[in-house]
């Protein structure tokens, strides 16, 4: 065990030869620490932990502290401790509840649509290995995902424009009246949702392809030999192996969709009226337009708790399934 902690005799001899002075002892002790199983994990974790504490833990605690204070950057007043006043104000604010309910509808619709389309496209590409141009098609399909939401929002705002937009040119060309997609409360939400779906369906397609890639070929071949019906192949083999990756994709999209702000800000500013005003946009406005830092910190904490709840539910369901499978 001794040799494990302080390196092999050969290496110790080499170090001593290289550093004949006291520094050799220091270096040797460093390498000895590296080789020590008690310290190695801690040393490997330290840089990550330092970053985590600086960039995550401290800001989070700061946010939590601010959420209990009345603090407006433009008031010129010092922050004042108000206990749960901000939380109570938010919970009693009908506008926030409206924004939250709109956001839940947004999350549900976007995740369902994107998962449905993404899975369908994933299956299509999974079975098309010999299709000419497959790689180009895949690259093009993934392109929306890598564009910034601000750029995408700008493109689509122009595409949807009733006067200049290409979509309305097409609509008019087939003899229909032009539609003010982003200016009408009946269409704006759906128009923005369509863009979000266009952007993020490739992500679910990617996750589907990864999930399908994790299915053992041998089991599929066995199913082929046994002439298992397709729905049984899907349930017993494909979903059995691929569901965790797929669920991870759904979980990531759910959390991400809950935070949607930039696309809406660029396309409609939350309007017309409040038709597309998602809760993340309210948070942005209160933080960076109104500079109500106490109030917006409290809202951020509430949204964080909701995100954690989402994640916990997903993980619980996954673990439940896993335990069920194991049993």
């Amino acid at each position, binding site marked *: 065990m001794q040799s494990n902690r302080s390196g092999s005799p050969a290496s110790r001899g080499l170090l001593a030869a290289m550093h004949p002075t006291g520094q050799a002892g220091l270096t040797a002790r460093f390498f000895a620490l590296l080789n020590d199983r008690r310290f190695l994990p801690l040393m490997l974790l330290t840089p990550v932990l330092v970053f985590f504490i600086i960039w995550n833990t401290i800001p989070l605690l700061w946010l939590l502290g601010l959420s209990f204070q009345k603090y*407006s*950057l*433009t*008031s*010129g007043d010092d922050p004042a401790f108000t206990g749960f006043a901000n939380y109570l104000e938010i919970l009693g604010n*009908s*506008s926030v509840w*409206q924004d939250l309910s709109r956001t839940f509808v947004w999350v549900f619709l976007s995740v369902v649509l994107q998962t449905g389309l993404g899975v369908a496209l994933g299956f299509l590409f999974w079975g098309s290995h010999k299709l000419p141009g497959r790689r180009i098609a895949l690259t093009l399909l993934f392109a929306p995902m890598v564009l910034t939401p601000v750029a995408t929002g700008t493109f689509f705002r122009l595409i949807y*424009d*009733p*006067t*200049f937009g290409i979509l*309305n040119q097409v609509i008019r060309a087939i003899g229909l009246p*032009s*539609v*003010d997609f*982003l*200016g*009408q*409360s*009946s269409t704006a939400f759906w128009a923005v949702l369509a863009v979000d779906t266009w952007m993020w369906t490739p992500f679910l397609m990617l996750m589907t392809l990864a999930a399908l890639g994790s299915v053992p070929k041998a089991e599929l071949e066995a199913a082929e030999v046994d002439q298992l019906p397709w729905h049984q192949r899907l349930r017993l083999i494909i979903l059995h192996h691929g569901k965790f990756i797929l669920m991870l994709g759904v979980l990531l999209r759910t959390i991400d969709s809950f935070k949607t702000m930039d696309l809406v800000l660029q396309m*409609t*500013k*939350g*309007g*017309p*009226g*409040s*038709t597309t*005003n998602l809760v993340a946009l309210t948070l942005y*406005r209160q933080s*960076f*337009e*109104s*500079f*109500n830092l106490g109030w917006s910190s409290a809202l951020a904490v509430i949204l964080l708790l909701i995100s954690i709840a989402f994640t916990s539910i997903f993980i619980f369901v996954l673990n439940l399934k896993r335990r069920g499978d194991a049993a």
Partner: protein
Amino acid sequence: MTSKLDFMTSSSGLSRRHVLKGAAAAASVAGFGGLSRLALADSPLKGESLHLSILGIAGWVPSSLGVKMSPIFAEYAKQKYGYDVDFSFADAPFSALFQKAATSLATRSQEYNIIISDSQWLGAFAKPKWVVKIDDLLKEQPGLTPEWYSPVISATYQTYPDGSQQLWGLPQEGDVVALYVRKDMLEDPAEKEAFKKKYNKDLPQTFDDFAELTMAEFEKVAEFFTRPDKNLYGTAMQYSREYDFISCFLYPFMWSRGGEIWDPKTAQVHGILNSKVNAEALEQMKHWLKYMPDGALNYGIAEEIDVFTQGKVFSCFQWAAVGPAMIPDALKGKVMVVPPPKHGNGSDAKRVYTFGGQSWVINAFNDENNMQATIDFMRWWYQPDVQLEYAKRGGNPCDKATLSRSDFDDMQPWFRTYKYMLAEGRSRDFWHHPKYAEMLSVQQEAFTSFMTGQTSDPMKVLDYVACKQQSILFEAGTAKEKAPDTCASISL
């Protein structure tokens, strides 16, 4: 054309003795540590090399003119004060500029030495003391600024709190709402004849015709030129939820009909904004949508420029400041800029439109050298020759000397209207309160919800805005009364 030499040799109007006397006093002003170098000499920066940064509005001609003209100041400073100075320009759109400035100033940074502030932001800059209180500075250096063309200029671009004598900014660009009309269409004999036949009236032809025009009379003109089959519409206004766009174009409907938005003395909103006359104003503004292209509900400044310059609208209610963009070379000679119509009928008809425009504000955290150079820059900026050059390049000056020149009205196509609308009573600004952004956000949402049909009752919209704004002002400690209990359950 005034040469660069003129700027360099023209006097600031202050004698050396005067400057020294004022500067010595300025050094003693509490909170103006950065100004204390004034006490040393009138050119304490001699031999120094400085860099000044201006934060202005992206894509806004008047903001960029301040920077484009800065090399002239650099030469002036070199010759008059003996120091080198260069400038950089940072910008952000209207909706994001305050955010950019505030986050920098909150850290006591001098990243931006001079900021071009929309007039409504004065309170938010002033309350945390992020910017220099100009009246202290002016007391010590009375020659720093010229006499303004109208008293409303100081109230609009300098004063916070409203109605007080405290000044926090200096006018950078004056701005008013103007009506841009297609002169070539108005003068077309076929159009004139067709209009006469349809309405038994003549199409307005001149500035004076439009100065007398009411909205009811102008509606006939807008209706006449609304021809969807030819992709031509009568007019355009701003209905967008972005920043203050719809508010600035709704207020004229309210003010001109006698409506008010608050009582600046008591900060009372509830019971003043939610009035019958203001509800009618909302309905009237919505009524005008039928003379505008599809998509007008999303129109802001840029969209209006697009539809007007592409010939899709006959007329456009638009800021005078964007004259250079509204009248490109292809439209020169074809556009007339006139006063926007009056509201009401007969002798009761009134015209009260919204003030636009921006102020210079000076970063209070500037170090001594930058503060001195900034004051030198401001003193240079308000010299008559510089203001004249600014006007010739398309900016809207506010000083009496330039606006009173006999050739001013013809210098730019919109100048006559600009001057006309500057007269007291024809244009007004709204709150300069630190809670401006929050109050604005509430009403932008509410007003657009009515225009787009999300909410159908205009009184409900105004009740909602009044409740929210009263609460905001009460919590900020400005309003004496809190929102009534009926506000607890109000929503759009």
